């Protein structure tokens, strides 16, 4: 589904990704871990199509197409979803209104008719349960005044409604209390599907106790320096990133 080859990315003269390789197939869950500033959000943003990054080398293929030829909205409509590390506030824009516009834009792209208000509300009610979203958040302005945890939950709720093919969750677990973490993880688990791939960016192995990944990758200094299964995350938790870095150097 997604193939990243030797990806090199710069931001304002600073090389952030330095030859990153990653391959993700439908049905898989990948966890990406790595120290602060190693380039995890950069990777997520570049996949979603955010401005301000220079791709200086490498290629990304999504479902057989050159990802960089698609605009951010086209990527979204083709099924790429990014749960933001820091979801932005949009005052005055109703949360559920934005979501309806998003869903109908995606449906239009697929040649499906738009959902009317009643049909849409049915979908919303059902998906809300999935992440135990508080109903009062639906009619507030997008993320405005939401607590950190509410913002994260809202991202997963949007994901549940939009049903992406490739979901990238950038530190969705940070800022969540233990109960919220469990709920969100349960939500994500229900969304696991044969046709869907999930990429989790996280610092904590804690999340991986609830969402069992198929693969774990360590991103350090702009490269994936180690890949493994769940065991790698556990080991990482015990021994820290230095241990992997050493290993990478030795290899």
């Amino acid at each position, binding site marked *: 589904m997604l193939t990243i080859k030797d990806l090199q990315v710069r931001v304002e003269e600073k090389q952030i990704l330095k030859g990153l390789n990653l391959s993700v197939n439908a049905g898989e869950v990948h966890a990406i871990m790595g120290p602060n500033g190693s380039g995890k959000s950069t990777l997520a943003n570049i996949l979603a199509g955010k401005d301000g990054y220079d791709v200086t080398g490498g290629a990304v293929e999504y479902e057989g197409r050159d990802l960089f030829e698609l605009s951010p909205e086209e990527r979204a409509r083709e099924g790429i979803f*990014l749960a933001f590390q820091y979801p932005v506030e949009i*005052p005055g824009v109703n949360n559920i209104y934005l979501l309806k516009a998003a869903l109908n834009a995606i449906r239009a792209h697929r040649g499906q008719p738009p959902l009317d208000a009643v049909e849409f509300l049915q979908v919303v009610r059902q998906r809300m349960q999935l992440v135990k979203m508080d109903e009062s958040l639906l009619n507030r302005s997008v993320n405005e005044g939401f607590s950190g945890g509410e913002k994260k939950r809202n991202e997963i709720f949007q994901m549940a409604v939009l049903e992406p093919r490739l979901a990238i969750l950038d530190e969705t677990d940070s800022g969540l209390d233990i109960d919220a973490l469990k709920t969100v993880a349960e939500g994500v688990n229900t969304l696991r599907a044969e046709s869907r791939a999930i990429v989790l960016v996280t610092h904590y192995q804690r999340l991986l106790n609830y969402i069992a990944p198929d693969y774990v990758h360590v991103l350090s200094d702009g490269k994936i320096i180690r890949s493994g299964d769940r065991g790698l995350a556990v080991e990482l938790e015990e021994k820290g990133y230095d241990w992997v870095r050493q290993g990478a150097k030795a290899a």
Partner: protein
Amino acid sequence: MTDETAKVEELVHKEYEHGFVTDIDTDTVAPGLNEDVIALISAKKEEPEWLLEWRLDAFRHWTRMTEPGWAHVHYPTIDYQAISYYSAPKAKEDGPKSLDEVDPKLLETYEKLGIPLHEQKMLAGVAVDAVFDSVSVATTFKEKLADAGVVFCSFSEAVQNHPDLVREYLGSVVPVADNYYAALNSAVFTDGSFCFIPKNTRCPMELSTYFRINAANTGQFERTLIVAEEGSYVSYLEGCTAPMRDENQLHAAVVELVALDNAEIKYSTVQNWYPGDENGVGGIYNFVTKRGDCRGAGSRISWTQVETGSAITWKYPSCILRGDNSSGEFYSVAVTNNYQQADTGTKMIHLGKNTRSTIISKGISAGKAQNAYRGLVKISKNADNARNYTQCDSLLMGDTCGAHTFPYIETGNAGAIVEHEATTSKISDDQLFYCRQRGIDEEDAVNMIVNGFCKDVFKELPMEFAVEAQKLLNITLEGAVG
């Protein structure tokens, strides 16, 4: 003296002789403004003598006044002697013969607004002789209004049929010498709307100039007078979201509202005159005076406006809160794009006790446009317990536009509570990216954010008007980002 002016002069004098009833067959007066021209206008409209005197009084004041220069707008000097102050409704043959002859850009806008074909023709000034739907709609409306005792007609008709009412209220809110443009309007206005709601009557429908078909050519100096007697209610809609074809560059209208005890007037405007092209060429100058007088105790006047058009807008719909417990409201969205300039706001003059006023102003600028809010809240000595709340928000799109806020507060009563809040924000790249990441294209994302910003004002508009206003905003800001 040219032949033409000689002819006019001759006619004017003839009129004086014949008591203003002479049939005159010139359709347009030569450019220029003097007492004779005013007399001619008055004669053309078969006005009573007191009205002519009133006009002349205004004119004499005007000649001693100077054009105000304090507004945050710039334009070349207007030559008032180069304007023709009277022209009879244009013969239909002069207009385009069919929509094929109309500017395609205009048609595109009509399409986007979803305006039916026959109305497109009317708006674009296409000669149509068939009777279309809206005429019969208008007739039904008239009957319903007459049953309720509501008078709603053109200003000229009112002068003929309700001269006492006109005489009692005309100029009682905006005196002839109020300001430069109001004085000019008082001297030369040609038509407009008149509306009278009798005691304890709730006007059975929203009144809209749009349905008053004969208002199609009210010209550049429009006069509106609305009187709501004790305990009555009326909601009045001015303007139209569709851009009208209009050859006059200068517009200086006057609107007067009078609300007696416990009466309520809700006045909504959508203004979408030609703003000029992307390079700032052409476009209408809109210098309008709008004022409401809450004359009676417990009366209420609210102004809601959506201003997207005109090259220059100079407009301060105001309320005089004279009656005790009266209240005034001002809700405004002003959008400027390209080279448009808007200096708009309100004045709330608190005279009575326990008077309340609310001001919500939303300014949006894009391109190279300048948008200023100018507001005055004045609490007089006797206005015990007066309150005002002002909220003034600006939204900028891009780096080449400007937003300015000029709030003036004068309090002569220590018990007054005046609150003012102001914010300036930008549509951020992060907000746009967030929307786009969810599958919404940039244009729609901008619209969504802008409409969200204006929500507090839109909710004050009557339903269909709000929907249209939203569409209009989207069209106005098309291409403003990206």
